């Protein structure tokens, strides 16, 4: 399995380099003009050309790409035509996006695969209406969804923030993004910790599993909130949660349908398999057959689908961010494009690429762990 993962990582890095080259080229070809084009308004053409030569923009595109790549490898993120280093704002935006992405996707996955199992198992009324609702939310126009949520819930969450933590929070002292970054770390470590402890405990007690998925979520939440209370940042995290609630819920609504629909198809595929009939004939309760027998086998297409649809999930997130005004990488990207700050555009695109690659690798590890057919030679 190590070899398989190494191969996937290497091929991912190669894809990343190709990706940057393609993006660099396309952005250059499709977007007219360059950073100095607007300077023509106040300068003579020769002066602008001299500036171009001075900054190397007159060179052929492949040389500029190699330059850009070299600079990225040695200096990392953070170049911007504004003259300020953009690394810190970029990382802040990333932590804001990560918070919404991880929590929203987790919720969407849990609800989507649970409802999908029900929809696939019970055809007829319940299954049909679940499918219908999920197709509507899957194709809903994201800006409209964002508008609806802001219109009906925006002032309510603002009031709630004021009532709950208004007095005990001072964002002048603590920066919002540092809290978000700490929250991300806590959630990731709490998830990993809870899963490992539960797996070890289950092995020790000789049981298949100790907690249902919902139980696991509650355990992770309890551990995280306990840690924040211990660290004394609980009011701040609650304030962030209340602000993040709208983008998280909107992102969840937008993406759960994908999981539901794939899970439904997948369940109806395995339902005719012999082992399901055997389990039912043995007298195993219907719900247990659905969740443990059929559900376990039906999960693979969902994971596979997850890997292919990361870009679409991310674009949904970017659109939601922009529609509800959440300061993540989507908002940064649009601001940079409008001001033709191409280094920042490339940085954000690269960030999205790396992000996709990492998420894909995480899913591939999960897939390989669950299904050895993926990496074992036939």
């Amino acid at each position: 399995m190590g070899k398989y993962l190494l191969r996937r990582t290497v091929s991912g890095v190669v894809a990343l380099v190709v990706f940057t080259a393609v993006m660099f080229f396309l952005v250059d070809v499709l977007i007219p003009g360059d950073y100095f084009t607007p300077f023509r308004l106040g300068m003579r053409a020769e002066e602008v050309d001299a500036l171009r030569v001075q900054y190397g923009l007159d060179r052929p595109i492949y040389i500029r790409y190699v330059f850009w790549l070299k600079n990225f490898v040695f200096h990392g993120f953070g170049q911007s035509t504004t003259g300020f280093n953009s690394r810190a704002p970029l990382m802040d935006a990333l932590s804001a996006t990560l918070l919404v992405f991880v929590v929203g996707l987790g919720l969407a996955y849990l609800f989507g695969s649970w409802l999908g199992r029900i929809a696939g198992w019970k055809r007829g009324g319940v299954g049909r209406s679940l499918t219908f609702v999920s197709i509507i939310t899957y194709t809903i126009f994201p800006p409209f969804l964002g508008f609806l949520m802001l219109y009906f819930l925006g002032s309510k969450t603002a009031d709630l923030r004021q009532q709950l933590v208004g007095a005990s929070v001072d964002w002048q002292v603590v920066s919002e993004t540092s809290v978000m970054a700490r929250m991300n770390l806590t959630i990731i470590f709490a998830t990993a910790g809870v899963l490992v402890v539960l797996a070890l405990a289950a092995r020790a007690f000789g049981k298949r599993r100790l907690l249902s998925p919902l139980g696991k979520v509650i355990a992770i939440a309890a551990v995280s909130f306990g840690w924040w209370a211990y660290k004394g940042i609980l009011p701040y995290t609650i304030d962030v949660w209340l602000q993040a609630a709208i983008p998280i819920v909107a992102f969840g609504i937008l993406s759960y349908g994908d999981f539901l629909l794939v899970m439904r198809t997948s369940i109806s595929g395995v339902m005719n398999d012999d082992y399901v009939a055997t389990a039912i004939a043995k007298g195993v309760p219907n719900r247990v057959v659905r969740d443990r027998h059929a559900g376990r086998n039906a999960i693979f297409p969902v994971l596979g689908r997850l890997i292919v649809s990361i870009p679409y999930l991310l674009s949904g997130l970017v659109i939601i961010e922009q529609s509800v005004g959440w300061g993540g990488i989507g908002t940064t990207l649009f601001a940079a494009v409008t001001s033709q700050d191409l280094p920042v555009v490339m940085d954000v695109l690269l960030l999205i690429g790396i992000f996709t690659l990492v998420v894909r690798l995480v899913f591939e590890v999960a897939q390989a762990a669950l299904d050895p057919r993926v990496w074992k030679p036939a």
Partner: protein
Amino acid sequence: MGRTLRAILGSPTAVVGFALIILFGLAAIAHPILMKTVWPSKVYDPLTGYDFSALPPAPPSSAHLLGTDSLGRDVLSMILAATRPAWVVALVAATTTGILATLIGAIGAFFRGWVDGVLSHVSDAFLLLPAPIFVLIISEAVELSPWKFGLIFGLINGLGAGAIVLRAQGLKVMAEPFIEAARVSGGGGFHVLTKHLIPQLLPLTVLYMMLSVVGAIVAHGFAAFFGQTESLISWGAIVFFGVTAYRSFGAAVPWTALIAASAALSLFAGAFYLVSSGLQEVLDPRLRAR
């Protein structure tokens, strides 16, 4: 062929989807006819119409079945007029995606080796970037007509996710015994590629084309929502006008315009989704058996 058609018509999801698609087709045809016959263009023009007898945004009435928007334009007329650009985006994006994905996928699966290696790395690279985001970046700087929009979306989608999906299917097909049989009986490479491999891929191509319409329509709506496409007449732009009127000069929320435009966009995308999932049920015997 007749059996497949009957199976498609037997699937309720596909039938509903087809019905919706036909409805949108009629809507695209109906608008110019209505403008020529019953709707005077001073009142009903989708861009510049204004009804002095109703204070905008007006609720639905017999003159304006869906009311008027914040600028006093008839919502139904705007919705119908926006159907045509949506069709252009959908058809161009789906065709480009289908052609590119099938060709690249088939070539990769047929030749294997270094050709496949190069092609699948390029596809992997395109998969790192969501097509909607990229089209949005471009449309921020360049005014895109529905044609160009569909073309760029299809290019990225077809080279990326589409090619990967079809290549996987192509590998499965190439392992089938009938390919070997075709080779043994003297079929050349080109013959196997065009007469055996690509025809086997076509059902999945159609399926994938349908799915790509969903992405293209939502992306186009979003680009229009930010005022970044050439077509001022589009569902996304209607939502944009409504939200902006409410946010920036505190006008009343034109609910009928917002809901109708969003619903039209979702239904149009949803119709293609329904047809694709109906087709999937037909193509996958494991699902059809029930």
